[in-house]
């Protein structure tokens, strides 16, 4: 058997069909369009089924906490009458310490039901630990593939902590150097073991997160008699946004504005051995956030069920320094010491709440656990050791890979609005490039309008400006 890079990649489709149990081709209706809801329903778990499965392993039903002191502080820096109430969903209360337990609980249950002996996933973050934790509870074996080191064998403290957590849950961990070959090695391990591919992007992963959107809508309604006016979601690969937004809708919270928040790391190359350790955030940043919106199907499965652009109303960016500052606020004013990466959406929310009226409600939908390696002091010690300048000042002076500026006061926390219309345009442009030679049919236009949360007119206009002719 050919185990070379090209040899394994040539068997990709067959390996994934066997190890996800999903025949993706069944849902393809053209090179562009596919039956998204059909794929989502293919695993045949309803939201109620997901809730039951999650409860079995102690996942979900996390507290919704009002951040009264942070809200007061935000109001003191807001225009008169402004400063919405900020609530946070304390997802750190899940078994492995993050919302990723929801993302994997149903997938691991499904793998066991289908008779797989183990699960494999590629993750350097909380997801890997969540898979290992859920698999431990269900009696399955786990292999986690992590991108950990640059070529000097220097690794981010946050990822080293993730290695430790996965091994604590009994997983076999492959600590790899920087490179997109992570996908190659994943396919190789899947083929060798015949384990289940617990990808982040399969239907069961997204259905699991729907419980989060549903739960926070219900909790807010029960307590306050209204649904959240806005939900801030840390955005990376799109699963958090997709699942949360779908769950909100299922709860009947149709008018909630869903805002994606990413840490601004524009300018750093994610596959570069040199840039790898020049960032302090390993997820929730633009290095995943933007490419996954403009081309969601870049994943380890043929069709990605995490489709952020379908659900985002707004997309905003925040700097690393603002997130570290916010992490301090949460600990010192609210008594909640949580991991910095999970506070990305909270940092965004401080700025977004100023736009809301005082009786309006903004829910930040996650926190994550903190530990050695996963806190501002360790991440900033590492940043300095890698040549990053750290200082107090105006966060607008942050330069990804060069300078981290910690705000001097809370009024300096301000998101940058990313033009979502531009993302919609580049998504359609990307689709056209990837399917060059295929003449788009009416079904494709309907699909693209849905998939980009735009309109038939927007898709047609974009195609026109790209000189793409649709079938008449």
């Amino acid at each position, binding site marked *: 058997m050919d185990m070379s890079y090209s040899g394994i990649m040539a068997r990709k489709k067959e390996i994934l069909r066997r190890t996800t149990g999903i025949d993706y081709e069944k849902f393809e209706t053209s090179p562009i369009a596919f039956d998204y809801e059909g794929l989502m329903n293919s695993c045949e778990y309803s939201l109620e089924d997901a809730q039951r499965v999650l409860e079995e392993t102690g996942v979900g039903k996390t507290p919704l906490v009002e951040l009264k002191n942070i809200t007061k502080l935000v109001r003191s820096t807001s225009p008169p009458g402004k400063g919405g109430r900020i609530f946070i969903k304390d997802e750190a209360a899940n078994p492995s310490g993050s919302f990723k337990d929801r993302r994997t609980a149903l997938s691991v249950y499904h793998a066991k039901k289908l008779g797989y002996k183990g699960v494999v996933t590629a993750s350097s973050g909380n997801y890997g630990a969540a898979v290992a934790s859920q698999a431990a509870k269900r009696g399955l074996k786990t*292999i986690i593939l992590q991108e950990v080191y640059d*070529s000097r064998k220097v690794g981010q403290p946050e990822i080293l902590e993730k290695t*430790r957590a996965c091994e604590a849950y009994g997983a*076999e961990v492959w600590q790899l*150097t920087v490179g997109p*070959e992570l996908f190659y090695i994943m396919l190789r391990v899947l083929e060798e073991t015949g384990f289940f591919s617990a990808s982040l992007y399969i239907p069961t992963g997204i259905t699991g997160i729907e419980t989060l959107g549903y739960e926070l809508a219900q909790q807010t309604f029960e307590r306050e008699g209204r649904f959240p006016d806005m939900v801030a979601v840390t955005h990376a690969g799109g699963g958090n946004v997709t699942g949360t937004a779908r769950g909100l809708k299922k709860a009947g919270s149709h008018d909630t504005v869903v805002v994606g928040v990413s840490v601004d790391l524009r300018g750093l190359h994610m596959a570069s*051995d040199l840039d790898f350790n020049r960032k302090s955030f390993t997820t929730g940043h633009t290095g995943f956030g933007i490419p996954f919106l403009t081309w969601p199907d870049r994943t380890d499965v043929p069709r990605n069920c995490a489709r952020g652009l379908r659900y985002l109303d707004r997309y905003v960016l925040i700097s690393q320094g603002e997130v570290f500052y916010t992490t*301090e606020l949460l600990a010192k004013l609210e008594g909640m010491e949580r991991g910095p990466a999970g506070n990305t959406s909270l940092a965004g929310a401080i700025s977004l709440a100023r736009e809301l009226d005082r009786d309006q409600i903004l829910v930040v939908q996650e926190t994550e656990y903190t530990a050695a390696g996963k806190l*501002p*002091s360790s991440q900033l010690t590492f940043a300095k050791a890698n040549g990053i300048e750290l200082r107090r000042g105006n966060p607008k002076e942050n330069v990804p890979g060069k300078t981290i500026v910690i705000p001097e006061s809370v009024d300096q926390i301000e998101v940058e609005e990313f033009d979502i219309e531009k993302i919609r345009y580049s998504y359609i442009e990307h689709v056209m490039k990837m399917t060059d030679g295929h003449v788009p049919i009416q079904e494709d236009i309907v699909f693209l309008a849905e998939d980009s949360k735009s309109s038939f007119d927007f898709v047609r206009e974009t195609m026109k400006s790209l000189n793409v002719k649709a079938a008449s």
Partner: protein
Amino acid sequence: MADAKRGELVQIHKIILEPDQRPDGLPSPTKSVPYECWIKGFLIDEEANIGDDVKIETFIGREISGTLYQANPTYDHNFGEPQKELLSIGNEVKKALEKSQNDNEEKI
């Protein structure tokens, strides 16, 4: 004395792809170095020294071979050093909160 004995926790190193086996299109700093991997497990060989070709049994009972990299590998990530840029934030924001409460009371 050998660096590790049968049954002890060790870490092995493997080169997965040499630079010329890596796919095209990678940024040059990445393409110019090998794609490497480290895995932990229990030593299967009777005894071995760093740099020897060995076999390990991983935490899930799989057998994997590689070069012995480290015996009794330790997690050495930590809480970092105190950062002066962060240390004063707590008191600053508590003061700001107090001030905003006083301002509010004056208005009432």
